[in-house]
């Protein structure tokens, strides 16, 4: 087993690249390094962490997708920079940036279009997190129906895919979504 050590960039550079202050970065790095002494998070550790937060369902699928979004260079591990940059977008970014992030999450293969299958995968992953013991119980069609509804809303030109512009437009016009996006702000 190769023990990789990874040192992040200097803290000043990180302060420049993200919207966090030095103090906040210090705290975050301490927690990060405590959990992952090697400085890198691999996908299994990631899935475990998610499993602890959502004990009743199966969060591994969703964790996989989120991992892929955080892992900007797709090398299979998340370094502290990727972690902090992702977090900066999610908690302190503008609405545009957040929507971009969400789009990247849904666009599994990164081709710039969200197909129905991709969305179905994500939605199924989210429903899996609820687990089977939900009230009312989640039927087999629930993810499919959910996707249908969302697609109706988003796919304006009915070409079967959602582009980044359609996505942004729909979300910006939906008051619920814009309000909800700000719920997760400043989470430190």
């Amino acid at each position: 087993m190769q023990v990789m050590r990874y040192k992040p960039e200097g803290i000043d550079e990180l302060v420049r690249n993200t919207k966090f202050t030095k103090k906040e970065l210090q705290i975050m790095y301490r927690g990060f390094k405590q959990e992952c002494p090697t400085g890198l998070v691999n996908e299994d550790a990631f899935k475990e962490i998610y499993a602890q937060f959502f004990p009743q369902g199966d969060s591994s699928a969703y964790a996989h997708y989120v991992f892929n979004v955080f892992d900007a260079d797709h090398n299979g591990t998340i370094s502290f920079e990727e972690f902090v940059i992702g977090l900066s977008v999610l908690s302190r970014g503008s609405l545009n940036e957040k929507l971009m992030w969400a789009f990247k999450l849904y666009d599994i293969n990164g081709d710039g279009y969200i197909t129905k299958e991709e969305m179905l995968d994500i939605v199924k992953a989210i429903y899996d997190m609820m687990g089977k013991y939900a009230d009312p119980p989640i039927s087999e069609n629930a993810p499919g129906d959910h996707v249908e509804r969302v697609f109706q809303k988003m796919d304006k030109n009915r070409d079967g895919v959602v582009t980044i512009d359609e996505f942004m437009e729909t979300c910006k016009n939906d008051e619920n979504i814009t309000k909800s996006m700000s719920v997760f702000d400043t989470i430190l």
Partner: protein
Amino acid sequence: MAAVAAWLPFARAAAIGWVPIAANPMPAPPLQERQKGEDEKLGINVSGRRFETWRNTLEKYPDTLLGSPERDFFYDDETKEYFFDRDPDIFRHILNFYRTGKLHYPKSECISAYDEELAFFGIMPDIIGDCCYEDYKDRKRENAERLMDDQVSEAGDTVQPMTLREKMWRAFEDPHTSTLALVFYYVTGFFIAVSVMANVVETVPCGPKPGKTENLPCGERYALAFFCLDTACVMIFTAEYLLRLFAAPNRCLFMRSVMSIIDVVAILPYYIGLGITDNDDVSGAFVTLRVFRVFRIFKFSRHSQGLRILGYTLKSCASELGFLLFSLTMAIIIFATVMFYAEKNVASTKFTSIPAAFWYTIVTMTTLGYGDMVPDTWAGKIVGGICSLSGVLVIALPVPVIVSNFSRIYHQNQRADKRKAQKQARLARIRIAKNASGAHFINKKKKEQDREDKIKQGIDIEEEPKDSRFESQHHHLLRCLENTTGPDLHARYIKDREFVEMEYTYNGLAAPKAQSSPPTPSPSQSSQGNPVESSCCSRRRGKYQFARSVSDTGQELNDIQIAVPNKTSSKTHLNASEPPKINSTNTTVTTSAIITTPTPGTTSDTEESMMTVSTTTSPGNSNIVRISTL
């Protein structure tokens, strides 16, 4: 749970992915009060040795002494630090637990001192990491046994009243429990010895009967005496066997066990002999049967631990013994063949055939050398020499392997048993933790719902104790998830999704908690109940109850028929002391439940397989455990 507090901001942020598809707006985040003093270092003085750590580190485990306000009792205002008058060496490990989340057990410390420190600081020994857990349990068991040995000599009768059957069984298995058992033990031992001696002495020539000339063996001279002795012994053995059979908890199992078979074989010849008449044909068979009387000596293995271990060794080294036998057979055949063809042409040779040469080869290879068969030709002598040299090697080689194998297998078995027991304990811990976190969340929600109801009704509420930041944020996160998977507001009236408590039934399957009584409608709901709703609810209740009764067969779980393997486990039934679940809803949505047709869905959830543990304990295993307490 607190160990992942560092990742909470991250899980919350990733929840942004839920927002675009969520139909309803997310609930507001919990109020966050800034803690005074971002993160300060605390000084802990343990008998003069100073430790320092962040406050957050200690508060990772709020149910221990250092993580809770209990530590304030030890605060020294003058030196502005916490002072503990305890062992600093052991404290080092305890503090490391807070830092790394793993509790280690130092081998150099005394187990009881360590336990005391753990108890003082409020840490459960179960948290000891896997690396040190085995060692810890071993030492603890040794200690406990030592203490128990001291106590057993003082202890009187057992407190619990046992049935006669159980008492007898215990007396048979462990002769030290009561004097009667000890007496029985020695009496049977004595009679086994007497019986074996009688069998041996029977054949010794005793001198001629008065009036005859031929020398008779004692058995025929004092035939009556020996017959009486034999009868007495067999009576005792039969009585013992029947008593054991009566007392055995599982009679079929007992009858198939090795010891009882030996018992039967030991006493059967006598009864068969009683039934046989003085027919010449069968008397030959009768004599053969008497040979089986020697099996009585094996009854001693109940009295001797060593014999039992020997038997176990042979059983466990069966493959090595088989190899030994096989290689010997090969060598014998080779050498016998060569010997035969070498000595074939010698006149009046003893090596008349290859099988006849087998005897010579065996005697030579085991270095016995009786000398009844010796080679004459020089070729035969060379072969004979090679044969005896190789014999030493072939026999000497597997024996140390068997010995070391025995040692290894013995220790391995012990460790395997230990690991199995620990694995169960560990899985049980994980299960409990999982359930606890789920139950905790449900609890919290119910409490909040109750508060809201009380506020609506205008009842005064007492102040809720403040939850930790982590907890409130975690709950918020889970509520957002519930929200996301709840369908569109504009769709038909459908209840929001909620987490449901899991109840673990005795056979290890998780089933949603059935609503045993009609849910008491909360005030916010009662006005909106309509006949459709009640009928739907009752329908669902019926379904739950149906599912509940069927869940025992392990086939169906709830409306979604999930095939779960039916395994039995020794989990304890988690006490569901919660009141029947109130169907609380989200703030604005009202509902009547519409039950979708159940669709079969099979899942192979790794969680499920982790949750159910099948345990099989065979009698063989129990034997092993007994031997280990040599």
